[in-house]
């Protein structure tokens, strides 16, 4: 039986983790390679780097980070942020990423999903969807951190992404993100009910129970968290211990 995955996410800018991290021996502005290795030690099932570098020159820096991480971390690595072209996919995979996540570029050009899946295989194409609830109750796709509403139904978009060859959906609720009140169970259920590919829940976890809740109340395959792990409020190990108590299939180290 497949284990439910716990996926720490690191925001990386110009080769540095931009959130304050307080792992022992790591400075406040952390080295992503060291942070990833620490998460690996804690039992992370996968690690996500989100490149928030604004400049083009920064991309080379990110690829170097990926390369160095691949030499030290032996769990799957997903890299996203600023992926726009097939060449971006190729460069990132060649540097050592196992999966590439694409967000707004796929919204603007859905064929990018199909092209990438045809060339590199569905297994490495993660479609990240940021969404929020509208007044009429449906979910709409947003980009630029929620600032731009694309007027696209998020559930329909997830279904289409799967059809185009996405291997996984990384679903972030902009309504729950940063609130720490728990994952957006309704949104996750809405998306999980229309796709067979794994859905990674993102946005909103603030405590242990939120992880068990998301796996008990939705069909999500994985749960992603950033600041919770960055700020050492919880370790991956603690989360998995709790999951085990709830009989959720989980990989322990």
């Amino acid at each position, binding site marked *: 039986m497949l284990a439910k995955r716990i996926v720490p996410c690191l925001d990386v800018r110009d080769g540095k983790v931009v959130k304050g991290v307080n792992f022992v021996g790591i400075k406040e502005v952390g080295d992503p390679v060291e942070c990833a290795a620490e998460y690996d030690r804690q039992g992370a099932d996968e690690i996500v780097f989100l490149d928030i570098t604004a400049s083009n020159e920064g991309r080379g820096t990110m690829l170097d980070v990926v390369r160095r991480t691949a030499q030290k971390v032996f769990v799957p690595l997903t890299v996203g942020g600023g992926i726009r072209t097939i060449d971006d996919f190729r460069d990132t995979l060649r540097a050592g990423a*196992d999966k590439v996540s694409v967000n707004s570029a796929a919204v603007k050009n859905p064929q990018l999903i199909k092209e990438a899946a045809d060339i590199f295989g569905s*297994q490495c194409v993660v479609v990240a969807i940021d969404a929020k609830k509208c007044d009429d109750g449906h979910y709409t796709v947003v980009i630029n951190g929620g600032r731009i509403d694309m007027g696209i139904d998020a559930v329909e978009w997830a279904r289409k992404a799967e059809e185009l060859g996405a291997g*996984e959906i990384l679903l972030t609720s902009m309504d729950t993100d940063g609130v720490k009140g728990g994952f957006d169970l309704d949104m996750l259920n809405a998306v999980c009910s229309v796709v067979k590919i794994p859905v990674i829940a993102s946005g909103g976890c603030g405590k242990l129970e939120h992880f068990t809740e998301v796996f008990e109340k939705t069909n999500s395959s994985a749960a992603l968290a950033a600041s919770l792990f960055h700020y050492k409020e919880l370790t991956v190990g603690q989360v998995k211990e709790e999951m085990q108590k709830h009989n959720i299939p989980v990989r322990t180290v």
Partner: protein
Amino acid sequence: MIAIVDYGAGNIFSVKNALDYLGIDNKLTSDAKELENADRIILPGVGAFPWAMKKLEESGLIPVIKEQAKVKPFLGICLGMQLIFDKGYEFGETDGLGLIHGSVEKIERENLSVPHMGWNSLIYNKKCPILNGIPEGEYVYFVHSFAAKCDDDSIGAYCDYGGKVTALVYDGKYVYGTQFHPEKSGKTGLKMLKTFSELV
């Protein structure tokens, strides 16, 4: 020295990275002589069966691989494991290396997504030296849409994904194949690679 067969398949660096990390002497090579001189051989691979066999044919390494797999430890990983069998059925029928009898067929699951992707736990079937020191039930990382169909006697371990999926094969002598990626399976996978590097 472990020779990692470099025949143009993607993602071979992750295997090299893992061996380097473990301090195991290794070399990426497409030279028949080096496969002969190596202590053991790893055949990695990501991609489609027919394409990989074509690449192997072009490299001229098929005869030496078949010969060396009879005399020294040989490990196929993921697609490299699938190539071990007689035939593959990805985009039509293609002959494989025939090191272990069996074929490689599409995973068909009505209610589950294919590729089978993620961490799945090993269920042991037969004693297999590469699993020494690894308790049954450990999770390893899979990414694949095709799986091996072979004699139960060749299966070291399988996993459950809406039914049995062949996870690890062993010919009882030198030939091993893992459908999962030991180089992406955390400590468990690294331990397996280390054990492989010490097999006699």
